């Protein structure tokens, strides 16, 4: 540290570092039996950083055209040294990130951390969750294999079913009427430029809001602590919580490395626009519950195409999720119970449909 001291002093004279880092030093994390849930946000952030790093590495060799995409990923996984590892970590980390983002969202939901004054933190968080899914969907197509080709066909067709704006939206997403090389190039642009730009801005806002409001305590505990302040227990964010989080990140990195090495991500077969969809085709697990719903929904419900109704229902569900903090205010205590119940039902539905999707039929 002593060699760094003059550097620190030099910076401090110009930027008054102590004032800048004061909020971080003052920040505390409440300690109670649910403290572990506070790790999930940071974990999602860590996996996002892993995605940015491995994504930049993949960009060195990947080529976003219909003729070269599959071959370039093949080249990365077979010829480039440790290419298989980088690609595999990118895929695994993407899946884990979707999982931790969902877990983070549900933990915030059930701990009621979205309540006033944290409504904007919730809004930016849910938007980040949607962006994570958009990252997953756009990235899935990039290896240009059969599974990805049909997943994209179905996914963009779903967007095309939206009333009024569906058709233009479909053409905009596909770069034409059909899924072609133009779609691949567009998705590549979304995946590596548009989405990261938006995500970075939203992420900074989200983190600033978290910093600004401090960490929320579950309502019941908050009341208990307010009644009896001597019960209140907290730890310093820096270094106590930060070091614990760092340890969790280190473990996550080990888990990622092991998963990537033991179960390297498959590449499949090259996409062919003039081949039938293969039997057993299915999307990534996090879209499975929607996929199964669309499979089970009848073709017509009261003269409306079943899938249009299903898609509208999922769209409405997304809007409801965004509106959670505002729904609760209007309905008060009973509403709070109902909302928790609804959340539990949603989890049960997602879990059942996902498991059902993977059952052999």
């Amino acid at each position, binding site marked *: 540290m002593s060699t760094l001291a003059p550097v620190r002093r030099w910076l401090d004279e110009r930027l008054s570092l102590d004032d800048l880092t004061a909020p971080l030093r003052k920040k505390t994390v409440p300690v109670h039996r649910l403290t572990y849930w506070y790790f999930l946000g940071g974990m999602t952030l860590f996996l996002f950083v892993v995605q940015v790093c491995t994504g930049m590495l993949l960009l060195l060799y990947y080529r976003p055209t219909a003729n070269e995409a599959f071959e370039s990923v093949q080249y990365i996984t077979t010829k480039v040294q440790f290419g298989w590892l980088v690609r595999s970590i990118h895929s695994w980390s993407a899946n884990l990130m979707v999982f931790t983002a969902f877990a983070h969202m549900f933990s915030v939901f059930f701990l009621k951390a979205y309540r006033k004054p944290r409504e904007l933190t919730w809004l930016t968080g849910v938007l980040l969750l949607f962006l994570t899914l958009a990252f997953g969907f756009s990235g899935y197509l990039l290896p240009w294999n059969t599974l990805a080709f049909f997943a994209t066909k179905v996914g963009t067709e779903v967007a095309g079913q939206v009333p009024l704006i569906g058709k233009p939206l479909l053409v905009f997403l596909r770069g034409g*009427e059909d899924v072609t090389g133009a779609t691949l190039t567009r998705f590549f642009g979304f995946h590596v430029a548009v989405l990261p730009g938006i995500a970075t801005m939203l992420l900074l806002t989200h983190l600033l809001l978290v910093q600004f409001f401090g960490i929320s305590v579950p309502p019941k505990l908050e009341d208990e602590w307010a009644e009896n302040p001597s019960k209140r227990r907290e730890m310093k964010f820096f270094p106590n919580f930060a070091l614990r989080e760092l340890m969790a990140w280190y473990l996550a990195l080990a888990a990622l490395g092991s998963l990537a090495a033991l179960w390297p991500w498959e590449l499949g077969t090259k996409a062919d626009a003039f081949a039938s969809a293969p*039997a057993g085709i299915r999307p990534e697990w996090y879209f499975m519950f929607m996929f199964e719903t669309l499979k089970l929904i009848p*073709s017509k419900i009261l003269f409306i195409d079943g899938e249009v109704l299903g898609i509208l229902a999922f769209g409405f569900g997304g809007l409801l999720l965004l509106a959670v903090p505002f729904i609760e205010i209007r309905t008060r205590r009973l509403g709070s119970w109902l909302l928790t119940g609804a959340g539990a039902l949603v989890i049960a539905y997602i879990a059942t449909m996902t498991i059902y999707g993977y059952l052999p039929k």
Partner: protein
Amino acid sequence: MRTTDIGDVQPLHDSLVQIDGVNPKRRRVLKGILGAGIVASLGSFLYPVLRYLVPPPVADLGGDTVVAGRVGELQPNSSKIFRFGSRPGLLIRTANDEYRALSATCTHLGCTVQYKPDQHRIWCACHNGMFDLAGRNISGPPPRPLEVFDVHVQGDELVVSRKREA
């Protein structure tokens, strides 16, 4: 002669009071012009961008008729996918030795369907949609039948064409 609580101010017009050299009406007009100018310039930036997002239409060179295969290429009770313009088509030689040609794009969510020789049905693997050999949606989520094409044998070529509207 009217006075305001600002002090001795000369009203220029009935509805127009000058306060410290500020003319509210004039200010409103100027704000309006400025606002309209900004909106117009934003529009002129955004319009080309929006048009740029829409890809130029691709000419469908396939036309309405295509050679889908050759006589003898398919065994009875088997099928193949052929190109019909930019879209896939499904050519089936049925167990009764008839040729059928249909659009291979599922009417549900656009996956490419396949012929199931064991069931003599057309099946979409994506969402388990089922069609009969006349293209009718008989089970699963597809909301509409598949488009059926005409098949003609010309020499040893199987020529598929879009049905003419009656």
